[in-house]
């Protein structure tokens, strides 16, 4: 218990990072789970959002209005990118998952290069906006106010996505398409706008995640790969079948990246992948337990 008190702030920071990862991973998970498409452009979209934040919030201080504008711009870009990607994926659907993944990887590489050409190779940092640039002190601990905002935003997002997927007609449609897509279409439901809509939702989350994460992670070439890898690990650990699974996976990886690095700095690079390997090895056992319980 004493250990927990000593490392309390680190654990909280792990939760903040985990919820930021959730924002990125849920889009990836939905696109992969429902549409069966591995969107490798997800990291690049995060980076686009981060550079939007650099452009609008860069400098010593930033206003809340600039931050809100950055979020709106990220949503617009995300919508455009999502629709574009969905249209691009349609003719490739017949050629299988690998071709779709490679096409998205191509988009990712081009986008990353364009961003490097426009913004340069330097690392950019972004200040937290307005009053969120302050500190929050409780019980003798100091914690940046912005990261608390990220925790609250992440939790809100998790609740909203969970309710939409589990409690609305659109969500039911999504879950039905996962189970039996042709049957859904046979029932007369045109799945094409639905597919584009879901893609756009995922990419909007990636871009918004980039704006949200900019005051914490900054923006620089290579960040897209870091974010994509962590997102994929979260999806592997949490599974693609449920929002709660993705949330669990994100929180676990968030703790591993923050608390794990603090406790085991020598193994920092390996911890995330060790967790993923552990999850893969334990997955069959857990599914069997769930089947027995059901």
């Amino acid at each position: 218990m004493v250990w927990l008190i000593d490392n309390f702030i680190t654990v909280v920071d792990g939760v903040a990072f985990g919820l930021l990862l959730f924002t990125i991973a849920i889009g990836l998970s939905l696109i992969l789970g429902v549409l069966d498409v591995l969107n490798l452009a997800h990291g690049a979209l995060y980076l686009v959002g981060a550079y939007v934040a650099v452009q609008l919030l860069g400098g010593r201080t930033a206003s809340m209005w600039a931050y809100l504008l950055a979020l709106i711009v990220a949503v617009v870009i995300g919508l455009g990118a999502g629709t574009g990607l969905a249209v691009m994926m349609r003719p490739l659907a017949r050629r299988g998952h690998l071709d779709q993944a490679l096409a998205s990887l191509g988009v990712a590489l081009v986008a990353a290069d364009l961003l490097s050409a426009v913004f340069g190779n330097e690392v950019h940092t972004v200040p937290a906006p307005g009053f969120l640039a302050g500190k929050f002190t409780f019980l003798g601990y100091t914690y940046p106010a912005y990261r608390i905002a990220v925790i609250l935003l992440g939790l809100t997002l998790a609740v909203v996505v969970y309710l939409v997927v589990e409690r609305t007609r659109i969500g039911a449609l999504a879950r039905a398409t996962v189970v039996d897509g042709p049957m859904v279409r046979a029932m007369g439901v045109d799945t094409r706008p639905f597919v584009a809509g879901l893609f756009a939702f995922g990419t909007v989350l990636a871009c918004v995640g980039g704006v949200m994460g900019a005051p914490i992670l900054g923006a620089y070439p290579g960040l897209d790969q870091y974010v994509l890898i962590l997102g994929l690990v979260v999806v592997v650990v949490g599974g693609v079948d449920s929002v709660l699974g993705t949330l669990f996976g994100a929180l676990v990886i968030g703790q591993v990246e923050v608390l794990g690095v603090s406790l085991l700095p020598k193994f920092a690079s390996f911890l995330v992948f060790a967790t993923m390997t552990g999850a893969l090895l334990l997955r069959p056992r857990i599914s069997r337990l769930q089947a027995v319980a059901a």
Partner: protein
Amino acid sequence: MQGKGRASRLLGCVVVALLLAGCGSSLTAATIASGSVKVGLLIPQSGVLAAVGTDISRGFHLYLSQHGGLLGGRKISLVTADEGAGPDTGVPAGQRLIQQNQVGVTVGVVNSATALGLIQPYNEAKVPLVIATAGANALTGVHASDYIWRTSFSNANLGASMGDYVAKQVGPGTVYLIAPDYAAGHEQIAGFQQAFQAAGGHVAGSAFPSFGATSNYQPYLARIQQSGANAVFAFFSGVEAISFVRQYKDFGLSPEIPLYATGPVTEGNVLRGEGAAALGIRTGLNYCTELNTPTNRAFVAAYGAAYHDPPTVFAVAGYDAAHVLDKALAGATSGAQVVAGLRQLGDIDSPRGTWRFSPTHNPIQQYYLRGVSEQNGTLVNVLAGKLTNN
């Protein structure tokens, strides 16, 4: 029949190509012997230390432009190569400069591991390498060699420059040491610790976050607070400095626990990225833009006019590299003669003050105490005094 003839011709071509490649060093000598000299500029153009590379390049180009593109009366043709983020890209790039571009001299190198990896190739090819930032002690210490020269500083000297001062500031209190987990980090901390403890200082603990892979310093900041240290001594470079300094403020360590550091933590655009979080940090470095000498005033003005930015210690190292080559290239017809020229240099009048090469080719120079404060809306490293020379 035809196949055999073609195969033997191909083999002949391969043999000739190998022979030509083996003649690399003699072609290098020819490069200096003729009128113009090819100079290689090996700097990081991407990654966490790209800004340092830009500064070195700017300093070097400024000296060239002030002297009509000539060094030692010889026209200079510059070949810029990207050393990348580490030795796996830097060492091949440095070798390509000798073998493919046949440069007469190379200047630059920011990554110490890269510099260490180039000692053997450059000594074998008899091409001088003038290092303009890489701080590894061994470059002018255990592995000092004829063809490796440095115009910046060694990690041990830089770290040690603050030892005496911090010991006096902290008195009976303790200091926590932190730097990235690579050669430069360990050497600067070791240099500081030696001088600090010799002056009666006490160390509370130390931490070495992994280099280039850490963006969240909160766990280390928590450990600093738990150790009860009265002050922190740190070294970070580039984006890691920005992250560390901002998080030092975000997580409440500033201003309760004073932060002392070596210069790179608040140099150049790193200071801009840190913003108000850097106020009050005291650093030691072999250069300060506020030095009130005619040479420095002229240099700062010229640099500002050319690049619309204040110069940094890295720019001074690049500028002085051009300066020493200007003296040593005059009348030289081989790498060995350039080295002889460098050996004969006495005191060098530089924006940083007057300095000279030590017997192992490292600068013997004055270190200055600087403090970050705000002047006319911009952050500046203000000159706060001179540090005792080790």
